[in-house]
């Protein structure tokens, strides 16, 4: 059972990851964010999203593709930035 594998550390790590992703989702343009949340969180089909937002299915597909691409880029930059900060801090510690 997954629950049995959860420790305070993994719970904290998952929560931290969720906050990172949540922040990245918040930064998405509104049209892309709404399509992504309807698909991945609400688990609507493309057709259902199209009907909900009154847009063609092709637009749903393009927005989802773009949203995920932007999310990957955002998270990639964020993680790279974190690495740089960590290395910077590490360097400072070594200097001391």
């Amino acid at each position, binding site marked *: 059972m997954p629950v049995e594998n959860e420790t305070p550390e993994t719970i904290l790590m*998952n929560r931290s*990851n*969720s*906050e990172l*992703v*949540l922040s990245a*989702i918040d930064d998405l*343009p*509104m*049209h*892309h*964010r*709404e399509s*992504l*949340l*309807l*698909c*991945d*969180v*609400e*688990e*609507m*089909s*493309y057709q*259902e999203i199209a009907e*909900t*937002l*009154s*847009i*063609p*299915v*092709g*637009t749903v*597909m*393009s*927005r*989802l*593709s*773009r949203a*995920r691409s932007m*999310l*990957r880029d955002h998270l990639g930059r964020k993680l790279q930035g974190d690495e740089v900060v960590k290395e910077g801090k590490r360097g400072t510690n070594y200097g001391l």
Partner: protein
Amino acid sequence: MVCESWKEKLDAYIDGELPEADMRTFDAHVRSCHPCSADALARVQMKRTIQVAGRRFTPSAEFRRRVQLSIAPKPRRSFGLGWMFAVAAALILVVGAVTSTYVGTRSGSGQFVSEIADLHVATLASSSPVDVISTDRHTVKPWFQGKIPFAFNLPELQNSEFSLLGGRMAYLDQTPGAHLIYDVRKHHISVFVFQERSLPAKLNENSLSPKQLSFNLETWSQGGLRYFVIGDASPGDIDSLAKLFKAAS
């Protein structure tokens, strides 16, 4: 199987939106192709992380009641985790969005361009994106004879980075037109040509800023024809291809 042709369908595969036959073919391919398998796994993990993050949106009881009244029960899909609360939660953003600027700012031009983007994406997602497959403009152009009520010129591509992949029919607001697909450094660019007078509304080209689109787009009217050049290539590439068409027309 060429992996690149499947990359564009990977999201639809992860979302369970491919036709059943394609799903089976893709399943078999992913099992035997390490890069596609790794890519698919990464996207599934991202999807699940988004699901977890989406839990954090907690709607009020009143809002949840209103949403539950307004939506019909929907069948769960293969990647479902039973997120009843998240259903209402995600709609907070959607309803907020719709009531604020989304609907209000959608213009006729925006809707038009949205349709063009749809045609472009749907074509690239298709297993047979072009009906006439040729890099020769003297083969592609005659293919449209008798299929569309106008003629147009295709540019000479020698000494350019663009290559013609082929063409197909396109329909915009029930108006037939030509859809040509070009390749530049592995980016696919669609060029649509329609009769200007057949289109229902005059486009405000100034309103079509890139921020409104997921793609780069250039459109212009020339010789009674309306041209659209759209793709995920750089604005410079889109502009270069547009200039070639303008010079040829």
